[in-house]
């Protein structure tokens, strides 16, 4: 942008000169411009490198945060401690880094086994080893759930384009990532927004955005391939989930048609007149207008499942 402005101003200068001077000046200018452009390019590259270093630094910090002892202690029912790190990861990571990181975590979940030498004289692993082993796998899985759950929608769309529609190297990983996203979002909504009175327009807006994110995966042309199957724990039950069961039913937490109807009822149950504190008529009108728009959006979603 800056270099193009310089070129335009330099060209304006040329117009006022005589032909020869103009030709000479143009030659000189071209040389000066080229030199300037080179410097600008170098500066831009330098800035990009700095930006990328900062971004990568943020990425490392976000992973470190997720893996901090205090955040990996209590992973169930939801690894709440990992959420902040997962959100930062989502902002900092490219889609390629995200899918590769997910792939790496899944590989560890699948392949890492306890050392045979740790087995007792009966050939069994002691309880402490089993617990630590399963917990390590849950740490990896919890990272996938929290990252996928809070991953920005535009990047999710990019992953779908690159890995699923584009036949990417990590297509299977992308299906698992999307299943994790639906599971996590469903749980998040059940445990937070649906569990509370939906009595502010912002809460309603957030609910619609997050439910909409699940909705698009549930309706996708590849919906039957979106599933997860983690069966490499020693003690705990396998984690198996798919968007739809064999009978075509969805689980309660991501049953979009049912959930949209529930949201529609909440407008009347919880969000009557916007539930705003009177005092600003402008704000009150804004809120009421937004409620009307949001309700229309939800009605469209309800209709889309009929």
């Amino acid at each position, binding site marked *: 942008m800056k270099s193009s402005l310089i070129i335009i101003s330099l060209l304006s200068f040329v117009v006022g000169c005589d032909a020869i001077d103009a030709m000479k000046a143009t030659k000189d200018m071209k040389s000066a411009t080229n030199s300037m452009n080179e410097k600008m390019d170098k500066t831009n590259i330098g800035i990009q490198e700095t930006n990328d270093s900062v971004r990568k630094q943020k990425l490392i910090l976000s992973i470190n945060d997720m893996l901090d002892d205090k955040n990996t202690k209590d992973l*169930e*029912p*939801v690894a709440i401690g990992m959420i902040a790190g997962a959100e930062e990861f989502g902002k900092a990571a490219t889609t390629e880094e995200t899918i590769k990181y997910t792939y790496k975590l899944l590989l560890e979940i699948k392949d890492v086994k306890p050392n045979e030498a740790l087995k007792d004289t009966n050939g069994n692993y002691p309880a402490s080893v089993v617990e630590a082993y399963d917990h390590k796998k849950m740490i990896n*899985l919890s990272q996938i*759930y929290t990252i996928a759950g809070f991953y920005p929608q535009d990047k999710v769309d990019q992953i779908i384009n690159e890995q699923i529609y584009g036949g990417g190297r990590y297509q299977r990983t992308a299906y698992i990532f999307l299943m994790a996203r639906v*599971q*996590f979002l469903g*749980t998040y909504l*059940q*445990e937070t927004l*649906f*569990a*509370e*009175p939906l009595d502010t327009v912002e809460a309603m807006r957030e609910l619609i955005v997050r439910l909409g994110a699940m909705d698009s995966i549930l309706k996708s042309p590849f919906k039957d391939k979106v599933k997860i199957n983690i069966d490499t724990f020693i003690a705990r039950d396998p*984690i198996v989930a798919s968007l739809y069961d064999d009978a075509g039913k969805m*689980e*309660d*937490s991501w049953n979009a048609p049912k959930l949209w109807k*529930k949201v529609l*009822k909440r407008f009347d*149950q919880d969000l009557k007149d916007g539930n705003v504190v009177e005092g600003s008529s402008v704000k009150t009108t804004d809120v009421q207008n937004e409620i009307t728009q949001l309700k229309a959006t939800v009605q469209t979603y309800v209709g889309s499942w009929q």
Partner: protein
Amino acid sequence: MKLSALFLSLLLVTQIASAGVLTIEKGNRSIEGVNVGKSADLVTISSTQKLDYIGAGLRTKKVLVANVKVYVAQIFLDNIGKFVRTDAGAVKSLADMKAGAIHLTFLRGVDAATVQVSFRDALDANNIDLNNKGIVAFLSAVKEGADAKDGKSMNISLAKDDKGVVTVVYENTAGVEKTITGDETLFKGILSIWLGEPADSGLETLRAVILKGE
């Protein structure tokens, strides 16, 4: 209003004694460390009514990959002989009941607003009119009540008189009681949370166990 009419209306409102209305007789088994009662006594203004054990079970909720234990529910009704132990028949048979009680012992902390929302969702799943006066008062009592804490219990005691007036005493986990009156919808509505159309798969499993009556 004449004094006699006022007295009569007060009598109806306080048909269930206002304090310590429900006593559960200890049983021989437990669920998640919670003793399951054999029967219960519901103290009304005029008498103590014996309630039969209908069933009990664990309310779980799937949270991501874990099945979280929420509470142990115990249901008691006054006329076990007329109670129909089927999905379709259970709520219908409540028409033959005059009294009942629900005893919930929480295994997980749940704030009062969340308890209210879960009850409301279950009432909604059973097409209970959420604008019914008694239902509104009941949900309000739940919302304003204490948060459900791990190991604490709440009681919902219900009695219906010959004129169809229903009195409910909601005792929250802090032991504070609130009396609510209403019509048949209140009686049927509250019990349909556990015996009617399940609002989610966790309640579906719980209903199945309660209907078995083991």
